[in-house]
């Protein structure tokens, strides 16, 4: 599996309601130790309505300037949802379902916090 197989994938909740597309993979460096670093392990999917402009980082960072750009980009990404990997339906092993299905309803997911990503 490649990272690009997950990025851009549509996400549906338990009831088949479209949540958006995967814009990023939030990882923790606590995977198996390989060489000097622990491998990044996917902890959650960041899901937004669009992909456009997500890489600019404004959707995840409340302080980043300038104001004009922040407002424009956040308008595009009003609803950024953090979907923990544990609720992603992976039971049917092998290739992941396309689109990704969740085991929970959209309403039960936490909205992304506005603070900047640790890093």
């Amino acid at each position, binding site marked *: 599996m490649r990272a690009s197989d997950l990025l851009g994938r549509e996400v549906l909740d338990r009831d088949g309601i479209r949540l958006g597309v995967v814009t990023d993979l939030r990882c923790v460096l606590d995977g198996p130790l390989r060489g000097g670093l622990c491998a990044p392990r996917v902890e959650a999917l960041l899901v937004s309505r669009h992909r456009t402009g997500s890489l600019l980082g404004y959707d995840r960072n409340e302080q980043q300037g300038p104001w004009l750009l922040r407002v424009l980009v956040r308008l595009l990404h009003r609803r950024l949802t953090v979907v923990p*990997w544990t609720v992603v339906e992976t039971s049917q092993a092998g290739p992941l379902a396309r689109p990704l299905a969740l085991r929970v309803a959209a309403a039960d997911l936490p909205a992304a916090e506005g603070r900047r990503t640790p890093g």
Partner: protein
Amino acid sequence: MTVAAGRVIDLHLHLLDRQVVDPDGRMVCKVDDLELELDERGRPYVTAILLGPRALGPRLGGRLGRWVAAIGERLAERDRPVSRIDFSLVTDIGSAIAVSRPRGRLDVIPLEDWVEEHVIARIPGSRHESE
């Protein structure tokens, strides 16, 4: 930026498309894609950096992406898998991704070697630094 265990990063924002550099400060490649594997509890983790047209092509998408991937396929030696740098070689994730092995010993950029050998090395002065 040094990396402590337990640090949180966003793969797309902090890892994909970043420059990979070797211990001598030479540029190796971009992180064109990342290889993921599932651990024993079914959670994906990063096992390698993928590079070259066959890694980049699918990310470009569309007809252009297929072209890039197809060209990569043609250029590659037969049965050679997509070029990868194992994640065990990564020593730092910052504004660049540092790896612990020099570029020459990674053997991941055959095109650079080909251009060097067949084009650039034939032009006088290619072995010397500028004056």
